[in-house]
Every structure is written in structure tokens, then in C-alpha cells.
């Protein structure tokens, strides 16, 4: 009887044998993946921790960013633990964790947060009883304000991250300007004076309206410098007032007078704007502390040795900034919350925090490490950030922070584009935020 199939080297190759071979291969792969003990008899399975983290150069832990790798390996051995990272680009973090939490199942044990703790509070494990007291004592008390909701500490900030002013010292010198601007008037004047020779005095990423590091959050910096705040004591918006309008008008004036890089409205991420400054195509911007590292690296910067940093210029109420609120949290669905807490303690270990600042540029949060002479020498911008921290730096985070900042940021973009005046934009923003907050407050 003829059977279909070809003969190759004496063996029968037909559909049945191909199907059987494929099934056997699949079963073998599945066994290797899900039953490693079958292949390594006698080996005990280490506890696996899963961590959701941003990709470097955003603040990332050892294993995602290259620092303290030996210490990390030692920690894993000592705790019989394996750590699996899922590192994603910063803009994708919020949506990824939203779908993870919505699934109701365990996906990650440790989550990176940036302003989202109130939004995801119900999915996070309170850390009040888990944080060692000696660690708490070594952290700035104010660092817990953005990770505390409904009286519970739900995370721990791991980097002192406030926006400060960064500027090209050589450009200022060429323009005959003595030192960085210290007031709004100086900021506007300097930006105009520094716009020359194909470069701009000011650059920022106004392309993403929402979130910390978005257009709305930059306006919040100027809002606080003008003496304003986002919400009143009743939780309703109060920003549609003189300080709010002044803050937005400053941004509009700097945009319309040509001193702001017009591409700023299309730069989505902070790295887009950072690259403009480090390429020497802009003179000033506000940025997070990490900027010191890439700006000092000849491989990524054309302004090595020319970067200066200072406290942000003062408005009528003084200087102010916002907090990046970069924190580690533990999910309620974590299978090993105690081990997850140990991992976070490792991330906050003084030796690891020291390597964090020296190797990645992200400042430590531990006060003892910030005061270390080696750290202050390796990160001269740390002293500026500490000085900035003496001024207000509220990020106004709430459970609907994304929606609120989307509304405000979009209206700010309309004002920058000249579609609306500052007053009109803030009025419309206030109306939208009132509706959003009313739905939350009920």
C-alpha cells in the first residue's frame, strides 16, 4: 500500500511523524519551563520575586541599571531568591500596572510608582509595620507625603528627585550673563538673550500633557512659585486665580517670544528635551537630578564640564519645585511580601544608594548617604537639590492625577499654541477638573 511521505536517509517523513515530533518538542519545552526540578535533581527552587520597573535612564534598580551588581548577586544568594524584572519605557508604566491590577491576579510583587500611589492605593500593601525604624529615621519625613494615602504608608521613595534648573555655563558667559537667573524676570530676560546662533534659551518637553514630568506638572512648579496651589481644603480646584494665570502667562510669554525651542510642544519625554540641551542647542531647562550623569559623559554630551545647576528661579512667592515621587511599593497579591520588603530594603541599603548616585546619577534618599563626602564630590548637584528641598515641592497627587493633569496639560498646550489666552485656558481647565474631582468626591 502506498503511503504518502518522502523517505529521507531511510526514515519516514510524513505529516503524522511531523505532527508527533512537534508535539514531543512542545511537551519537552513545557517540561523544561515548568518543572526544572526534573532536569536538576536535588536543586531547591529559589523564591522568585517579580518587579515592574522603568527602563534606564529613568530611575531603575540594580539588574535593570548597571550598578551594585555584585551586591545584588550576594543578596540573591543570601536570601535564596531570584528576581525577575519587567522593565518598560516610562510612558508605558501606568497603563501596564493598571491592566495588571485590573486582572486581579499576581503579576508582580514589587511595583515602581511615580505619583500613582493614591490611584492604586487599594492594590498596595501598607508598609507602616514593615519598614525598619532605622530606615525611616534616615529618610526625609516629607518623602512619605506622596506615598501615604488615607493615613497609610503604601510605599517608600528611593531617590531625592526634585526639578532644578540646569544651564550651559559657556552660553551664559558668551552672553555676558553673570550666574544663573534667580527670578522670573531674569529667567525671561536670560532666555531671550541666550536665543542666538541657531539655539534657544529654554527647552522643555511640553508634548505630554499628563503625569509627573508632563506639561501640567511644569506649570505646577510655576504655580507654587507664584504662591498658588492646585486644591483648596475641600479638595476642589482653586488654581484659576492670579497665581495660576501668572504661572501660565510666564510659560506663554517665553514660548511666544521665541526663546523656547518651538519643538518643545512635540517633545514627549524628558529625554527628548535633555538631548537638545546636551547637544548644545539650548541653554536652560528644568530637569531631574539624573541629568548630571549623561551631561557629564562625553559619549552622550557635547557640553561636558559646561553644565551648571541651580535652584529654580523665584516667582513672587519664592522658589518651588515638584517631587518626582519615585517609590517602591508591594502589591497585595505578592506571594512573598516579607521577601519583597527585604528587596526594597536592599535597594535602600546605604552602599547600594551610594552606587545608585555615583553610577546612574539618581540621588539617594537616605540623608546619611546624601551627606557622605564621596557622594557630594561625585554628585555636586546633590547640594542644589537639598537646597531646592527647602522650598515647596508639592506634586498634588490624587487618585485621578492622570485625568486631572491631562485636562490641565491640554489646555496649557492650547494657550502655548495661541488658541486660547491664559485666562481662558485656565478657566476651561478648572471647569474640567471640577467635574473630575466632583465625580471622585461624590
Amino acid at each position, binding site marked *: 500500500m502506498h503511503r504518502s511521505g518522502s523517505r529521507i536517509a531511510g526514515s519516514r517523513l510524513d505529516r503524522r511523524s511531523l505532527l508527533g515530533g512537534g508535539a514531543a518538542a512542545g511537551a519537552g519545552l513545557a517540561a523544561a519551563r515548568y518543572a526544572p526540578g526534573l532536569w536538576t535533581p536535588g536543586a531547591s527552587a529559589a523564591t522568585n520575586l517579580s518587579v515592574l520597573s522603568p527602563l534606564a535612564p529613568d530611575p531603575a534598580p540594580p539588574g535593570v541599571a548597571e550598578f551594585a551588581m555584585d551586591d545584588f548577586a550576594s543578596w540573591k544568594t543570601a536570601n535564596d531568591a531570584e528576581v525577575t524584572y519587567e522593565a518598560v519605557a516610562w510612558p508605558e508604566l501606568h497603563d501596564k500596572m493598571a491592566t495588571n491590577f485590573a486582572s486581579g491576579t499576581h503579576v508582580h510583587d514589587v511595583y515602581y510608582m511615580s505619583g500613582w500611589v493614591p490611584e492604586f492605593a487599594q492594590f498596595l500593601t501598607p508598609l507602616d509595620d514593615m519598614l525598619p525604624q532605622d530606615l525611616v529615621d534616615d529618610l526625609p519625613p516629607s518623602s512619605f507625603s506622596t506615598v501615604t494615602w488615607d493615613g497609610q504608608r503604601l510605599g517608600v521613595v528611593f531617590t531625592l528627585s526634585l526639578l532644578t534648573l540646569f544651564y550651559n555655563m559657556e552660553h551664559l558667559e558668551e552672553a555676558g550673563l553673570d550666574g544663573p537667573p534667580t527670578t522670573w524676570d531674569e529667567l525671561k530676560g536670560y532666555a531671550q538673550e541666550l536665543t542666538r546662533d541657531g539655539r534657544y534659551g529654554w527647552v522643555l518637553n511640553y*508634548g505630554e500633557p*499628563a503625569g509627573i514630568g508632563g506639561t501640567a506638572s511644569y506649570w505646577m512648579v510655576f504655580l507654587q512659585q507664584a504662591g498658588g496651589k492646585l486644591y483648596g481644603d475641600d479638595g476642589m480646584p482653586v488654581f484659576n486665580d492670579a497665581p495660576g494665570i501668572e504661572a501660565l502667562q510666564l510659560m506663554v510669554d517665553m514660548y511666544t517670544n521665541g526663546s523656547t525651542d518651538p519643538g518643545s510642544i*512635540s517633545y514627549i519625554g524628558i529625554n527628548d528635551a535633555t538631548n*537638545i540641551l546636551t547637544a548644545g542647542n539650548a541653554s536652560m531647562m528644568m530637569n531631574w537630578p539624573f541629568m548630571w550623569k549623561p551631561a557629564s559623559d562625553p559619549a552622550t554630551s557635547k557640553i561636558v564640564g559646561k553644565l551648571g545647576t541651580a535652584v529654580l528661579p523665584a516667582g513672587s512667592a519664592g522658589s518651588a519645585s515638584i517631587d518626582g515621587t519615585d517609590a517602591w511599593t508591594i502589591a497585595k497579591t505578592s506571594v512573598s511580601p516579607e521577601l519583597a520588603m527585604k528587596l526594597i530594603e536592599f535597594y535602600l541599603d546605604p552602599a547600594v544608594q551610594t552606587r545608585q548616585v555615583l553610577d546612574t546619577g539618581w540621588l539617594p534618599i537616605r540623608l546619611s548617604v546624601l551627606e557622605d563626602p564621596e557622594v557630594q564630590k561625585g554628585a555636586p548637584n546633590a547640594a542644589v537639590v537639598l537646597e531646592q528641598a527647602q522650598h515647596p515641592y508639592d506634586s498634588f497627587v490624587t487618585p485621578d492625577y*492622570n485625568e486631572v493633569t491631562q485636562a490641565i496639560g*491640554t489646555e496649557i498646550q*492650547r494657550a*502655548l499654541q495661541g488658541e486660547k489666552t491664559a485666562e481662558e485656558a485656565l478657566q476651561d481647565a478648572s471647569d474640567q477638573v471640577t467635574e473630575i474631582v466632583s465625580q471622585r468626591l461624590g
Partner: protein
Amino acid sequence: MSVSANPLASRHREPLPRPSGGNLAQRRRRTGVFLVIPALVVMVAVILYPIARSIVLSFQEAKLSAGEIGTTWAGGENYRRISEDETFMLALRNSAFFTVSEVLLVLAIALGVALLLNTRAGRKPIYTTILLVPWVIAPVANAVLWKWILHANYGALNALLTALGITDRYVNWLGTPGLALRMLLLADVWKSVPFIALILLAGLQNIPAALYKAAKLDGANVWQRFRYVTLPGLRTPLALALVLQTIWSFKVFDLIFVLTKAGPADATLLLNFLAYRVSFNFLDFGYGAAIANIIFLIMFVLALVFIKLLKPGAPRSRANA
């Protein structure tokens, strides 16, 4: 004549006993259905169930609470919100402009490309290979590519235009509201033309050459041959291309996500991105599902309308010949 002597008698056979379960055709049909059931189960699970679930979700208020998506019946409240939502109307206008413009541009350019490829010189494989390059690039990779082409400071487009003396200053392609949407349109047209061109090329190659010869003999000029031979012959592939491109244009997402995040000031906000933003940025799943269902309904109705108007594959009557 005895039966045994009848030469036809040997052909007479007693009818074979009918096998249980019906005749061969019925058994084949049953076997076919049985073999298709697994695929049907998968289709119901992957396509029909999510659609039904989404429709139900659109009538609920669904938010993350107490560790899960909590739902309460909201009736038509989400759809009422849509009717009063200015952002939705803006996204709808943008989507309508984007879709109509892209469909017209893609069909026109793809038809031109297909006509060129259907010539003796155009049949060389190298031309088809070059044509396919935009189409084979992954959507996100395509978006990143265009991000660097359109960059306000470092973009290749600005460099080219200034080098050619067409402009004397760099243009902020993605920072100007009206211009940003048109540049996204350009990027998506570039990617969409190849596949549609191939569909139309296949249709052109199916038109019998004899029809062109006959038309030529009757004195038809180039335009008349195109209008009375080519276009009618392309009715089915054109209908297919129209439906596919309309759906694809309406659901563009990757370009918005990578290039503009719907900015500046929602100038490039399209319905698909709005549904995503509402669902995953604002965690308002019910409202997001309502927007997504509106998109589904629009595309479904459009597809039905196109197919009814164009009647692909239907024989034409003598009166219309």
C-alpha cells in the same frame, strides 16, 4: 429471454444496505462540522465573547475598586456622556478627516502604482520588492522611523528641504496642530499603499487582455479603456480595498501613541486613541467600552454600505454594460 441471458442482467444489483447515519453527503457534512467545531469555539472565545462583553460593559459604570473592576448598571449613561463630550466630537471630526483623506489618497496612489506595475517594464520582481518595504516594517518601528524624519531639530525632512532650498528654516511638523495631523496622514499613507497596490495589481492581472484589444479595435482611447474596461474589472478588488483601508484608517493607533500622544492640544486625537486613553489612563472602562463600540458600529455600517453600493462580484446587467 431469461434473466441470465440478458446482458444487462449482470449489471442489476440488489441495492446496498444504506449505512446508518444517512448518505455520503450527509456524513461528509457532519464530519466537516465536527472538524470545524474547535475553530468555532476559538472564534467565539476570541472574537464573539469579547465583543459581547464589551457591549455589556458599555452599559455599566466600571472602575477599579476593592482590588477588581467593580461594575454597576448605568443604562445609557455612557452613551449620553458621549453625546455631550466635546473631546469625543473633536476625535470624531479628526477621525473622519483622517479616514476620508487616507482612503482617497491610498486608493489613488495604489491604483497608479498598480497600473505602473502592470506594464511590461513594471513586471520585474525588483519593483514589487521595493514596493513592499514600507508594508513589512512593523507598525511601531514605522512610527519611530517617522519620529526621526519629522523631528523639529534633527529631522531628515527638515534637512532635505533646507538643503534643496525649499525652506530656509526648520518646520515644527509635529508641533503645529493642523500640520501634525497631516504628517501622521502622510506616514500612514506611505505604509498603507503597498498592500492595496498588490490587491489592485492582482485585480488588473485578472482582466482579460482580449477586452482591451476589443476596445482598442472599437476606437477607445486610453481614458475610455480605463473607464470602461479597467474600472469595471476592478470593482471587486476596489470594494475590498475600500473596506479594508477604511477600517485600517479608522483604527490607527501606533502613530499617535509614538509620535504625538494625541497632541499638540488633542489636535491629533483619533477615536481609537481616545478609547485607549479613557480606558487605561483614566481607568474608566465603561466609558472606554462605549467609545470602542461606537467605533465598531461606524466601521460595521461603513463596510455594509460599501459592499451594498459596489456589489462586488455581482454580474452586471446588459443595460449597465
